[in-house]
């Protein structure tokens, strides 16, 4: 696993996003075992406490779960994975809409532009 970090943002948030992306795109599957703190820290060349924090946050959000004595696993609840997907889509949309509004497009314009773009993508 290789990851380019942006040192301007908290590293733990970047790893959280990375793991969520892996889950949503199916590279990590529901119920898969996750690397240990130590292994992931060594692989990413970062502080183990940062990895620990990443896992704590992911656990709090229900994305991963700890099974006592066995280690950490990706949640086996498909509904949770769906909701991560929605959350990520929401972030993308928000950024897009903000950007378009800054460019001066109205809501109708944006909808029309998106519809058109999607249609032309399908025709390709």
């Amino acid at each position: 696993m290789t990851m380019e970090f942006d040192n301007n943002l908290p590293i733990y948030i970047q790893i959280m996003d990375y793991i969520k992306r892996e889950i949503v795109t199916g590279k990590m599957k529901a119920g898969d075992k996750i690397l240990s703190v130590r292994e992931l820290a060594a692989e990413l060349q970062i502080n183990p406490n940062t990895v620990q924090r990443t896992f704590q946050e992911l656990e709090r959000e229900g994305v991963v779960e700890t099974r006592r004595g066995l280690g950490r696993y990706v949640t086996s609840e498909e509904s949770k994975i769906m909701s991560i997907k929605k959350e990520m889509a929401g972030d993308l949309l928000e950024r897009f809409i903000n950007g378009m509004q800054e460019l001066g497009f109205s809501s109708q314009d944006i909808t029309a532009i998106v519809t058109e773009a999607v249609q032309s993508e399908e025709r390709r």
Partner: protein
Amino acid sequence: MVDKILKFEGVSKSYRSKTALNNVSFGIEPGKIIGLLGTNGSGKSTLMKIAAGLIPASAGSASVLGVPVGLATKSAVSFMPDRPLTESWMKVRDAVGFYRDFYPDFDEEKARRMLDFMNLKESDRVSSLSKGMNERLQLTLALSRQAKLYLLDEPIGGVDPVARAKILDAIVEFYSEDSSLLISTHLVRDIERIFDEVIFIRDGEVVLQEEVEDLRLKHGKSVDDMFKEVFAE
């Protein structure tokens, strides 16, 4: 309440008329990797040497696990100086033997694993090692002791990016989680990812101590950018 691994209270140090440290106070918790960041001549090495018990403070107190720094704390502290302690006649094997004989807490098995990781051969002559390989050897020797506090003075100074990456790998891989590491450097960008906290030291004074993730969150900046800002001339 767990004792701080290292604690400085109002520590000052003067060399004749020159003040190297002025009223420095900070504490280090167990299990942390701390970056001691400052430009050349800011007082990093002086601070390290006081913590290691190699030079006395002119004023204030320094303690390790609640015990004043001195003979009693030397067994808990492993210091990697910015100049090697090994002799030029030594082979890597002799350097390891020297440390083993000198420090009862030296873990020879760990040293072997680290040498292997670092691509160092026991038959290599210390004097024929490149600067980068020598840094790797010094780090191996320092981290192979079972200490509570490791003081690494400029472990990546003057080595190329490849050797730097290897040294960082080794630090993450081989440090034990109940101990703490204090690493001094002025090369912030390459190493900031492995820190829990950073302490900025300027003209002998601590100007900032903060958790790096909080710093990024609060300022939206890398430690490197903060460093450049604080130390801009």
